[in-house]
């Protein structure tokens, strides 16, 4: 492994050898090498096969700008070989190859390119036989689609998120960014400077013009305590109000900056000619990076395409690295470089006027043709200018334009809080780039309210020749690539226009130009020029496609972070665990599903029987609990709920039903009037957040004298239910009289139980005598223990959520959200009794009247199934009438009390009468008969609850 001597190889540590494998072959590199640089040092240029034609591809930018360098590392697909450092034992393999990289069976596609016309994604694949799509085309297309293969067994990794706030965020640590950051930090601002490269300096680390160096600026940046430097950090997007994701390895730093300076530099552009994708044809900057950063001699004999003066820096480095220069190709005269040209000529280079017309070579460039002359070479460097790195700026509202005089893309950004600096702003001369960085910092400082006089706009003499627009006439034999990711040639774009796609966004969608991993970095300008020429418009009028985040590839893990799941436990959680409860999540809450062990159905049936025959207790702490207070509390509830609450007596509890403005049922609960100005209102577990928000929102408009307190998390609740409930209650040490005559159904009492302050209500969901005790969460365990102790002689046991669901279904009680949907009106549910006919207004009343006039086409009813029914339908199974669906099953369970299955279902209104027979399509597809029952299956006259 021979490398160039120092100062070349600034990023590698020659004392530390690192070994990895590529395509099964052991490769040695140095610490600091990237995968691509280590491989190039061994003459391995080919890294991948192209997406469509499976052509050999290698490094082009050494800056992560192209898809050519995407490889698989271990289990991770699509890793950028030109950016990713090597590590000991790393296993690197090529992607998108059938067989191996060297012998890719699909490479034959390259010769049949005419059968894969542009926009073939939009063609239909119908022939030749009827099933050709399934048998022939789909398997082919699925295999061809996408790059890399996702490993679904990849082990979990920890990702993290962090937050950062600063006065000024400078993106890009090249000469402009460094100057801007130092200028802003000198003035005392809190500054962050980030760059994706592992070191500061940007282009100065590999392409410094004579006399320019980043050393002094880096030293000052490191010394300023109010300047935070983040290298190896990719700023991957711009979002509103200067919210920028900074990706640092597996950490996503969410930065909020008062001012952002985008010193993102330029993206060196490739030249378009036949076989311009051959490995060994690289951008000038890539050759210099290989030489200067990694000490890799990029070839033995080079042809230098000198469209811009940058090429002379490249040639100087090549010569210093011992690369013979076969030819310097000048598409146009470059004044002021005669001395350099003479020196190159003297060293043996042919100086030719023209452009590179084509390249030759099978898996690596072997020669290029300029006009009629062929030049043998194993390296071609391309210097035709840069496009400003526009991604972040355009996300921030910037616009790309085109300067006809200099044929370059221009970038402008006019938004408070964000500004461009340096090459991104269009500057070319080193002095102008640095001065523009300082100027941007001054502007940011002024925006921050600091005294920072503006600087003179920098003079820039380098602009005139900074870009060289070579002709984009299609090669008759094609393979002149504009988009390397998607294998798109000049003719493809011209054909797209001929197909009628004139707008750049449509051309993009039809051809997929710019959709690959490089996101148009290398193709946008050439695409705009080609489409402009084909449509007879200017490049500026043609434009480029919309830039969206992310700027570079990001892993989903970085976006997901830790993935914490919010979890809520009731104050009685430890009691349930001690009793061996099986806990299940209900939204964010964890609730006891079942206490028993052994066979599930039997354990659930036991808990149901416990409540029907003895007494059980259910933790109802997850219920929404709202306290509505104020002189207008009754009026407020009257407007929100369908029943009358203003005239509700103190110490009474009333059912409450909430509609939305379209008269659909959204929640139910009870309202307990504690005193004249105070109600204690329950809401369903899942809806309380919404109900609480609705209450606040409505009152922001109504302005009634009322406030709402959400006690859901602060208070706990127990429901003691069953024929033995009263015996348990009267055994408790309490100042509340729980006897039948003193505490009637739907009464409410405030008092203490076992010294715990409680709100007690005679309400239940089971149809049995029920008492609900609510108390502050901190005392819930005390109350629970007291109830359990008092209940022990009566056989009291806790029961779980599943038994509770069966018990309520046996009574025909609905669960909002389970038995209702977005359209369920009270009439469809048979809840006419719960809707006041006297109140002049409540939310949903007007729509309910309108819906009544329209009539309704379904009713929620109870269904019973024969005990010997061969199949019981599941939830969501369709109810059919004359073969057409008219509704569906919303809840179904086996009733241990009745010994057969019961369900709630929407049926046709004409079938809603008791005794009607309806047909349901079961999961098996077979029809199932069910008989319509009234709403309650057990105790339809509600005699039991008042025992």
């Amino acid at each position, binding site marked *: 492994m021979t490398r160039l001597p120092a100062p070349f190889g600034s990023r590698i540590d020659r004392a530390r050898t690192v070994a990895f494998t590529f395509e099964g072959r052991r490769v040695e590199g140095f610490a600091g090498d990237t995968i691509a640089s280590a491989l190039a040092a061994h003459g391995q240029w080919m890294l991948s096969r192209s997406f469509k034609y499976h052509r050999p591809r290698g490094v082009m930018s050494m800056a992560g700008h192209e898809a050519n360098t995407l490889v698989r590392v271990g289990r991770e697909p699509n890793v950028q070989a030109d950016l990713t450092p090597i590590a000991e034992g790393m296993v690197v393999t090529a992607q998108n190859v059938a067989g191996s990289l060297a012998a890719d069976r699909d490479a034959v596609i390259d010769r049949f390119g005419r059968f894969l016309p542009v926009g073939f994604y939009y063609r239909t694949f119908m022939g030749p036989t009827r099933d050709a799509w399934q048998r022939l085309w789909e398997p082919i297309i699925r295999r061809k689609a996408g790059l890399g293969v996702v490993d679904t067994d990849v082990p979990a990794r920890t990702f993290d998120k962090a937050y950062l706030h600063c006065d000024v965020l400078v993106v890009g640590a090249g000469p402009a960014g460094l100057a801007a950051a130092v200028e802003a930090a000198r003035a005392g601002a809190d500054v962050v400077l980030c760059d994706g490269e592992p070191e500061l300096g940007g282009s100065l680390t590999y392409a410094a013009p004579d006399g320019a160096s980043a050393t002094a600026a880096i030293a000052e940046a490191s010394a300023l305590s109010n300047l935070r430097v983040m290298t190896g950090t990719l700023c991957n997007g711009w*979002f509103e*109000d200067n919210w920028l994701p900074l990706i640092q390895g597996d950490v996503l730093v969410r930065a909020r900056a008062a001012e952002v300076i985008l010193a993102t530099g330029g993206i060196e552009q490739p030249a378009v000619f036949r076989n311009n994708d051959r490995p060994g044809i690289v951008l000038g900057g890539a050759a210099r990076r290989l030489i200067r950063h990694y000490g890799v001699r990029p070839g033995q004999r080079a042809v230098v395409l000198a469209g811009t003066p940058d090429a002379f820096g490249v040639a100087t480095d090549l010569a210093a690295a011992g690369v013979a220069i076969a030819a310097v190709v000048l598409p146009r005269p470059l004044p002021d470089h005669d001395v350099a040209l003479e020196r190159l000529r003297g060293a043996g280079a042919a100086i030719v006027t023209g452009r590179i017309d084509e390249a030759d070579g099978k898996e690596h460039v072997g020669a290029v043709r300029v006009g009629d002359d062929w030049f043998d070479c194993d390296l071609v460097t391309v210097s035709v200018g840069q496009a400003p790195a526009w991604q972040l700026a355009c996300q921030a509202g910037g616009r790309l334009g085109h300067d006809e005089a200099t044929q370059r893309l221009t970038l402008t950004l006019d938004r408070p809080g964000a500004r461009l600096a340096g090459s991104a702003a269009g500057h070319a001369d080193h002095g102008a780039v640095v001065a523009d960085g300082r100027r941007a910092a001054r502007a940011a400082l002024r925006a921050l309210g600091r005294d920072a006089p503006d600087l003179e706009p920098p003079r820039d003499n380098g602009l005139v020749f900074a870009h060289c627009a070579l002709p984009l006439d299609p090669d008759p034999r094609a393979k002149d690539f504009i988009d390397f990711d998607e294998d798109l040639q000049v003719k493809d774009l011209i054909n797209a226009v001929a197909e009628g796609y004139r707008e750049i966004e449509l051309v993009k969608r039809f051809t997929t130009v710019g959709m690959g991993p490089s996101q148009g970095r290398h193709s946008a300008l050439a695409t705009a020029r080609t489409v402009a020429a084909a449509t007879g418009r200017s490049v500026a009028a043609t434009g480029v496609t919309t830039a969206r985040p992310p700027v570079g590839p990001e892993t989903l893990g970085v976006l997901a972070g830790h993935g914490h799941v919010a979890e809520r436990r009731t104050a009685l959680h430890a009691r349930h665990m001690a009793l061996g409860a099986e806990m299940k999540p209900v939204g964010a809450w964890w609730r006891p599903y079942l206490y028993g062990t052994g066979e599930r159905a039997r354990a659930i049936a036991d808990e149901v029987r416990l409540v029907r025959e003895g007494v059980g207790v259910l933790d109802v702490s997850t219920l929404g609990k709202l306290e509505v207070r104020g002189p207008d509390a009754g009026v407020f509830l009257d407007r929100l709920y369908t029943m009358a609450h203003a005239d509700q007596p103190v110490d009474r509890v009333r059912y409450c039903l909430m509609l939305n403005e379209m008269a659909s049922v959204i929640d139910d609960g009870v309202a307990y009037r504690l005193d004249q100005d105070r109600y204690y209102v329950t809401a369903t577990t899942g809806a309380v957040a919404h109900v609480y928000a609705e209450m*606040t*929102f409505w009152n*922001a408009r109504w302005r009634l004298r009322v406030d709402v307190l959400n006690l859901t998390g602060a208070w706990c609740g127990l429901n003691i239910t069953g024929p033995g409930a009263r015996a348990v209650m009267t055994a408790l040490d309490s100042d509340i009289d729980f006897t039948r005559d003193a505490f009637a159904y739907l009464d409410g009492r405030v008092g203490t139980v076992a010294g715990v302050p409680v709100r007690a209500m005679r309400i239940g969901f089971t149809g049995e005598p029920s008492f609900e005790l609510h108390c502050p969460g901190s005392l819930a365990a005390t109350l629970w223990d007291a109830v359990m102790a008092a209940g022990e002689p009566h056989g009291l046991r806790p029961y779980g959520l599943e038994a509770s669901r069966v018990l309520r279904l046996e009574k025909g009680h609905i669960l909002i959200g389970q038995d209702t949907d977005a359209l369920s009106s009270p009439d469809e549910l048979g809840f006419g009794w719960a809707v006041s006919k006297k109140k002049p207004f409540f939310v949903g009343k*007007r729509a309910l009247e309108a819906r009544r006039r329209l009539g309704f086409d379904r009713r929620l009813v109870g269904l019973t199934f024969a005990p010997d029914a061969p199949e019981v339908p599941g939830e969501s199974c369709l109810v059919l009438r004359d073969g057409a669906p008219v509704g569906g099953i919303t809840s179904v369970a086996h009733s241990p009390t009745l010994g057969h299955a019961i369900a709630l279902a929407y049926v046709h209104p004409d079938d809603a009468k008791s005794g009607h027979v309806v047909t349901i399509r079961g999961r098996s597809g077979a029809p199932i008969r069910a008989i319509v029952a009234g709403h309650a299956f057990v105790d339809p006259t509600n005699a039991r609850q008042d025992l």
Partner: protein
Amino acid sequence: MKLLTCPMNGPRNIDEFQYLGPVRDDADPDTASDAAWARHVFRAANPPGRLLEWWRHVPTNFVFVAERDTVSNDVIRTFDPATAERP
């Protein structure tokens, strides 16, 4: 991420807020026709330009009004309707 200034809690990330729709004159349920009421329930104007909107700061359940330019997405002002006169 956008910032929104809650009149009670100051500038907060937009993901702490719930959008509650444009401020509009509540139609009179006693006089509106069914068609007019359906329009009131199901349709809201979304004109380009300045719009008054209801917002809620979710962690504190504070409901307020924001004036926003629906073209530029700039929030011109936010205020507590209980203390400010509605324009």
